[in-house]
């Protein structure tokens, strides 16, 4: 343990040096890079699974994927996108940005930071290895409802359980690190209500993570003991309750969907003011709205379970609570529009993605409001309408959020400007393809197509074909994204330290690329340039 990156042994081969640098690093920027690389890799793997799904659904009948394999693809696509792409993506951004935004030299617990990252490759290694096992990978959907996942789950389910445990440990440790960093390492003068919104949204997200990941761990542990140690938590035969599983899962699951979106809110709140050249409208209400959303997320899990036979009183309570979430979410959207209002806007790639995020996320919010109404939910539930809803929230929401962040801060990380022309091209292909893929799914769901089916009746053929073509475009457009990122890392026009003429925040006072160690002496806050618009 005495060997650290700082005490390099002289005659090591470059390979060993490379490995030990990345394996043993405790630097927040390097760990951030590792997280982002993992997220990007899994994005392509999980995306390839989506391509298999859409290929099979291109036409009715069975063409490319047998039903059992199709179910494995549906399950793994969901698990990897949620736990492997969006969560590590946001943690990577947090690692890179939070210390630089609050004027800290690093995360508060650097070794823990290294540990929380290096758990993940093993977790996803375990999960992906199930694809090659006898009996196949988990095939019960990312929500792994009992008893399909317990009594009837394939043998590989145990690897899935262990994988989920590891991811959970990683997330909790990462979240604790973020909370401790934000509470203790802020530069003098940066009170909580002066923190950048990205830091605020991550603080709230981290609290959600600490509170709900143990619940998920509890759920999979109960599964494990049901499968192997003779308990009957979720088995009616032994006096247990299959619906209990859904309650436990969604008590984790609903805050989880806000974990997947709140940092995206923070990103949009950083980027839109920069390109509107105007301060964020309603900073305080943004913070309070985020807190309100997080608190409400703990009492609405039942809206995933309206068809399980909930009593009327519970249905009404959950419906009202869910509808209430539209209020703080609306406040956020209105604030973004008001930020743009009478600004002086330009539309570089990060701004395009941020605007795409706001518009398409709002569409997902509208369908969410419709889904909250219990009587209509009886028709929408478990159909492609739901698939359309959560992909609108997650793709143009979470994924566009991450992409706009990558475009926005990439020049700071690499010191080079990305190719603006290609970036815009990427945006326009992505926004056309996203809508082409997911908008027709609303129609499919309303017309009666259940979700998670490998084959469908003939009246659904047209829209499925459109969605599949869109998905192909969307998949291809990400190769362009990969090319743009790689090209930017390898070189390009040098970026200035501020990069964007009216970007605000401590990270822009650092040179580009940001040196490995920054803010070893605390910076001045607020920076003199911050008052640029009042000069």
């Amino acid at each position, binding site marked *: 343990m005495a060997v650290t990156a700082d005490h390099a042994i002289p005659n090591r081969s470059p390979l060993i040096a490379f490995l030990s640098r990345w394996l043993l690093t405790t630097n927040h920027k390097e760990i951030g890079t590792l997280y982002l690389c993992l997220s990007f890799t899994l994005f392509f793997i999980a995306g390839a699974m989506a391509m298999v799904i859409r290929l099979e659904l291109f036409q009715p009948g069975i063409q490319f994927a047998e039903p059992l394999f199709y179910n494995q693809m549906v399950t793994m696509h969901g698990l990897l996108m949620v736990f492997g792409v969006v969560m590590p993506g946001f943690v990577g951004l947090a690692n890179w940005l939070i210390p630089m935004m609050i004027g800290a030299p690093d995360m508060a617990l650097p070794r823990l930071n290294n540990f929380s990252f290096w758990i993940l490759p093993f977790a996803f290694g375990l999960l992906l290895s199930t694809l090659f096992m006898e009996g196949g990978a988990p095939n019960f959907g990312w929500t792994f*409802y009992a008893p399909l996942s317990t009594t009837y789950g*394939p043998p590989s389910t145990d690897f899935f359980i262990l994988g989920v445990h590891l991811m959970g440990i990683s997330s909790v440790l990462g979240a604790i690190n973020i909370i401790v960093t934000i509470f203790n390492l802020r530069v003098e003068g940066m009170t909580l209500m002066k923190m950048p919104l990205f830091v605020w949204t991550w603080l709230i997200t981290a609290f959600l993570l600490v509170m709900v990941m143990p619940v998920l761990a509890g759920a999979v542990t109960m599964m494990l003991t049901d499968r192997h140690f003779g308990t009957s938590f979720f088995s009616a035969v032994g006096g247990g*309750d299959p619906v209990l599983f859904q309650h436990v899962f969604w008590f984790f699951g609903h805050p989880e969907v806000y974990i997947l979106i709140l940092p995206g809110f923070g990103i949009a709140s950083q980027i839109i003011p920069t390109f509107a050249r105007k301060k964020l409208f309603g900073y305080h209400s943004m913070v309070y709205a985020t807190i309100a959303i997080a608190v409400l997320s703990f009492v609405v899990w039942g809206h995933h379970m309206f068809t399980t036979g909930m009593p009327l009183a519970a249905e009404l309570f959950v419906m009202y609570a869910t*509808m209430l979430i539209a209020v703080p979410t609306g406040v956020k959207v209105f604030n973004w529009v008001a930020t743009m*209002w009478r600004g002086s806007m330009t539309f570089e790639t990060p701004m395009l993605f941020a605007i795409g995020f706001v518009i398409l996320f709002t569409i997902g919010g*509208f369908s969410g409001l419709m889904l909250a109404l219990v009587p*209509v939910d009886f028709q929408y539930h478990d159909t492609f309408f739901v698939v359309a809803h959560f992909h609108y929230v997650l793709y143009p929401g979470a994924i566009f959020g991450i992409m706009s962040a990558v475009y926005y801060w990439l020049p700071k990380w690499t010191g080079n400007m990305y190719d603006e022309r290609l970036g815009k091209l990427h945006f326009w292909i992505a926004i056309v393809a996203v809508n082409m893929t997911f908008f027709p799914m609303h129609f499919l769901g309303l*017309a009666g197509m259940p*979700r998670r089916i490998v084959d469908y009746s003939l009246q659904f053929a047209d829209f499925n074909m459109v969605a599949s073509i869109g998905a192909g475009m969307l998949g291809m457009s990400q190769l362009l994204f990969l090319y743009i990122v790689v090209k930017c890392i390898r070189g390009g026009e040098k970026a200035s330290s501020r990069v964007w003429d009216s970007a605000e925040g401590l990270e822009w006072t650092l040179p580009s690329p940001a040196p490995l160690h920054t803010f070893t002496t605390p910076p001045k806050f607020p920076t003199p340039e911050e008052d640029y618009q*009042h000069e």
Partner: protein
Amino acid sequence: MTSLINRRCRGLIVSILLAFSNSAFAAVMDLRPGVTDISRRILQLHHFSLAICVVMAVLVFGAMFYSMYAHRRSKHPKPADFHESLLVEIIWTAVPVLILIGLAIPATSALREIEDNSNPDLTILITGSQWKWHYQYLDADFGYYSNMSTPAEQINNLEPKGRNYILEVDNALVLPTNKKVRFLTTSDDVIHSWWVPDFAVKQDAIPGYINEAWARIEVPGLFQGQCAELCGKDHAYMPIEVEVLPEEEFDQWILDQLLAIELASGQAVADRARTWTLAELMDIGQTVFIDNCATCHEADGSGQGSTYPALAGGEIPTGPMQTHIERVMSGSVDTEMQAWAPQLSDLELASVITYERNAFGNDLGDIVQPLTIFESR
């Protein structure tokens, strides 16, 4: 003048909406009105909430796009300086609350009616199992299984797909018009969900639970639906068909069923009274096998990995006959292999077991007679 324009506008909007809802397109892109009072109320609620969302979207996105156009740097080089307004914040918190209350009221009243399961005229117990439905008429004390009837050739693209591709079943659920029919749902294995969009009934079928839902269907006809909860390999192939008959026809149908059950039990006595030849049993057995077993064990008995073991040369079909009979009749606990004794007749069981012991190159020469099955029950 303005009222004339207003009226014209309204007329135009109404006619556009009507054209939209009447076109064939609308049939595959919107909720259907269905055939119950509840299903129509749900459709109205759906349209009401959709309309509110569309209006909000037009306002918010309209403001945004206007701003993007008018407040772009080339046109509006000097940004304004405001970044807070308590009044505006209060307005756009309060107005959505009022809109939500407007939505919650009709939703609550519809929901209260939907959840009123009292005083049914007729009760059907619906049991899901992988991957079929079992309907029991509790008032008339009989029931039957309902399997998808689309042949595997259509699914595997070897034959053209029919109009009712994967939505057709061998025995549809039969219901009367204008009666309050209560559906009790439960399951034998994993969670399924019984959904008929035209009745606006979607109720999970959960092992260990009995859930309730109801419908009062107004018109006779054939209505289709599908299982809505992922339930394993053939989740896509678990359709629901409901044939709704006018009341008198339904009563007659019930009498016909009771008569048919009596006849079938007479036939069963005759079946086990005689000795069947291998060729006869193989013939019947093949049909039974294709209809019930081939979805997992494959038509050639090759199975699918360890989850669905191969029957060709398999341990059970080539092992002792009694073990084989027990496995088919009672199934295997905690696997998708279900108990077939309640689902198939003595003759069907005898012939399918005979088939499995002699087909796929197993060639044991064993013959199982219906009488043996009868005695094993």
